């Protein structure tokens, strides 16, 4: 047989090596004045009153402004468009804001009291206000938005509430004429705000580009271009950072921190997200007994989990309230499995055959523990470790690790397993944090109810004096610790990968704000 070696071999080799000889490829680093931020998903909408995800909130933080804002230390301060604000003493339901003069939106429209009123009216429109705005509307309980004069705006709530300014920090204000006259599909992809940046390009699922807003009157941002790119795979995000083609990436696994630090920088920052095991009151009847719930808390060595599973990327807590409202006297339950055993004995669950606890009728203490995979830092591994500790005290544990999309709906519908791992974000206001346990709260997933807690809650929501509010919140945290509606775990540490050239500090509320960031060499 006559071989036809040459042409075939050339074709074969040329195809194989073609990728290797393509010159250059994409530039290794973004342009000198651009910052590339990688998030897991793209925005679905940039409508100021329809967004619901954290990536959308991060983007819109640069385009829109609000009446209040959190500074880098999570202190609530007046927004850039506001001179001052106050609660009218004669009627606690009226919040009055004095706006700064000569503020304009990026399309040239004036930002005055009428524009602010239009933004609230739009957000309260049930056909429009969705996602986060719907959550804010529920919490703010607004009766009326009123433009008193050109620069005086009043927000009137149905009931007095001292936490109104906290929720206003996320109520975006858009250009009134533009949002009134432009069809919804169009405003969903082209935002007009008064913030330090304006969006100049958005190719869905590819990239969104922002450049400084020429009409912005606040401090000029140093970065001339922000590129937001959705990269769903966590490993690819880290590879982009390592290659130098990205500047900020989120959700870095702790075991990759040393790798990143060899080339770029990895930041771990204690966030406000509280991670805990919810104990349902509609599940196994044994869980309605406080002694059993306390036993579960004593059974788990949370410090060991933080050290060995999270590689110290967690801050232990015995409270569900973030600083500065956290009660320093509330200490976490001690890891004491002997005490856990005693409490279970007292509750009538004695050790039976095969090291499984049984009640007087001989029924085993069979409890389901559910955990998600991929939503929180090492969530599946943490759940598995907790399950192991619970087995050690004689619980016949049914451990279930479930994909997030399937995991969360049963929790929201209050038909989850007996125990479930969940995290709750924070805006660093004590009342908002502790409201997760209020009996009417949609976030009270376990249906826990405590009358003493409820009476303190009723005092708290009408109290405007900060010192008194602190006292009430401290008492409520004592009650929560004692009654143990959760297995208390930790505050999550958020780990960011950041390029060497970017000078930027992450925020504890998981927001990426680049307005004060600068680029070095």
């Amino acid at each position: 047989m006559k071989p036809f070696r040459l042409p075939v071999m050339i074709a074969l080799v040329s195809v194989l090596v073609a990728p290797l000889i393509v010159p250059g490829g994409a530039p290794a680093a973004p342009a000198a004045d651009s910052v590339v931020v990688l998030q897991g998903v793209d925005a679905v909408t940039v409508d100021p009153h329809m967004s619901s995800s954290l990536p959308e909130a991060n983007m819109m933080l640069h385009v829109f402004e609000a009446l209040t804002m959190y500074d880098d230390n999570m202190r609530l301060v007046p927004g850039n468009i506001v001179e001052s604000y106050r609660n009218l003493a004669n009627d606690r339901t009226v919040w009055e804001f004095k706006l700064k003069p000569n503020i304009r939106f990026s399309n040239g429209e004036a930002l005055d009291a009428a524009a602010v009123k239009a933004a609230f009216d739009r957000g309260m429109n049930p056909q429009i206000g969705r996602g986060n705005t719907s959550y804010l509307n529920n919490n703010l309980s607004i009766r009326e938005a009123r433009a008193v004069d050109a620069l005086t705006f009043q927000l009137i709530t149905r009931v007095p509430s001292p936490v109104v300014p906290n929720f206003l920090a996320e109520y975006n204000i858009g250009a009134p004429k533009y949002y009134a006259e432009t069809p919804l599909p169009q405003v969903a992809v082209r935002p007009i705000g008064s913030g330090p940046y304006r969006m100049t390009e958005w190719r869905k699922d590819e990239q969104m580009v922002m450049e400084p807003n020429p009409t912005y009157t606040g401090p000029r941002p140093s970065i001339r271009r922000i590129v937001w790119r959705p990269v769903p795979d966590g490993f690819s995000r880290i590879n982009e950072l390592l290659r130098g083609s990205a500047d900020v990436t989120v959700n870095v696994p702790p075991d990759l921190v040393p790798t990143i630090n060899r080339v770029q920088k990895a930041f771990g920052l204690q966030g406000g997200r509280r991670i805990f095991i919810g104990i349902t009151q509609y599940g196994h009847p044994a869980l309605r007994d406080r002694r059993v719930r306390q036993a579960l808390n004593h059974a788990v060595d949370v410090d060991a989990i933080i050290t060995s599973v999270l590689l110290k990327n967690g801050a232990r807590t015995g409270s569900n309230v973030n600083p500065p409202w956290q009660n320093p006297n509330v200490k976490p339950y001690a890891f004491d499995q002997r005490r856990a055993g005693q409490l279970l004995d007292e509750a009538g669950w004695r050790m039976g055959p095969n090291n499984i606890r049984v009640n007087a009728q001989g029924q085993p203490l069979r409890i389901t523990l559910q955990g998600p995979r991929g939503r929180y830092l090492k969530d599946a591994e943490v759940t598995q470790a907790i399950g192991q500790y619970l087995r050690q005290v004689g619980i016949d544990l049914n451990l279930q690790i479930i994909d997030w999309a399937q995991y969360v709906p049963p929790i929201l519908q209050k038909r989850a397993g007996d125990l479930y791992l969940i995290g709750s974000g924070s805006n660093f206001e004590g009342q908002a944090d502790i409201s997760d346990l209020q009996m009417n709260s949609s976030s009270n997933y376990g249906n826990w109810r405590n009358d003493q807690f409820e009476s303190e809650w009723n005092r708290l929501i009408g109290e405007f004096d900060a010192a008194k509010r602190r006292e009430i919140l401290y008492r409520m945290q004592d009650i929560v610790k004692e009654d143990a509606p959760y297995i208390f775990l930790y505050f999550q540490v958020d780990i960011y990968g950041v390029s060497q050239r970017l000078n930027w500090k992450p925020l504890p509320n998981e927001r990426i704000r680049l307005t004060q960031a600068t680029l070095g060499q």
Partner: protein
Amino acid sequence: MTQYLLRRLIQAVIVVLGVTALAFGVLFLTGDPVYLLVDPRGATQEQIQQLRVRFGFDQPVPVQYVRYIGNALRGDFGLSLHHGVPNWDLIVQRLPATLELAFAGFVIALAVAIPAGIVAATRRNTWADYASMNAALLGQSMPVFWLGILLILVFSVSLGWLPVSGRGGIEHLILPAITVGAFTAARTARMVRSTLLEVLGQDYVRTARAKGAGERRVVLRHGLRNALIPVVTLLGIDFGYLLGGAVITETIFAWPGAGRLAVQAITNKDIPLVQSIVILMALLFVVINLLVDVLYTLLDPRVRLA
């Protein structure tokens, strides 16, 4: 010929109807579909019932299915729950990226597989045969995500030659195309080798050699053309796989295609969008198979007579 094509067309319609029925049924596997539309934390029973009536979920399931098919025939695949825009628009926006990746993967697969298969068959039991078939075995058994990550680590992170992810110029296409085409290349190379070996042992090939035809002519004109008949069927199936199976590749490389849209839709429990993508992909698959059937008749006239 016409009868043959008509029979294939009827079979295709049945397949598409079956897929639509399955995709439609998925909506009900998740429980009451109205809960996909509403956050149960904030909705009253009255609001939930209003939505049930508005979206027709109060009707019997067969009625809903017939209405669904009727709308789909008019090009109305409903609204995405998550995006709030027509599913069809979302898919059409992302389809060019998926087609681009699938074509590039397909071209790479063909460019590698056919020469490799010919070399392996004509140089049987030599190092060239062993090397190409071992490479094919590796390509067939390597998980897509692993290959993708490996390529990124070598060509993007270590060598810095190609971008890690995203869509842009040709340089963005190379790694995902190799990743998505590797399996097809490997399988096709093995298939080409085995069918070509079989054909080269046939009497008509011996006759051609006896008549003095050159080896290149014998292999390419008499051997390869006949060997490609089963390969074409396989390639048709594989192209459908490349279109619908690029889900993992699109995720790893942040490629803005329909596969990634499907992953997002599943994560967001956007069942109507998942249904639409499944139906559209099935439709593409069926059309490609129909085209393969037509091509078959051109390559092998016996098929027309069957």
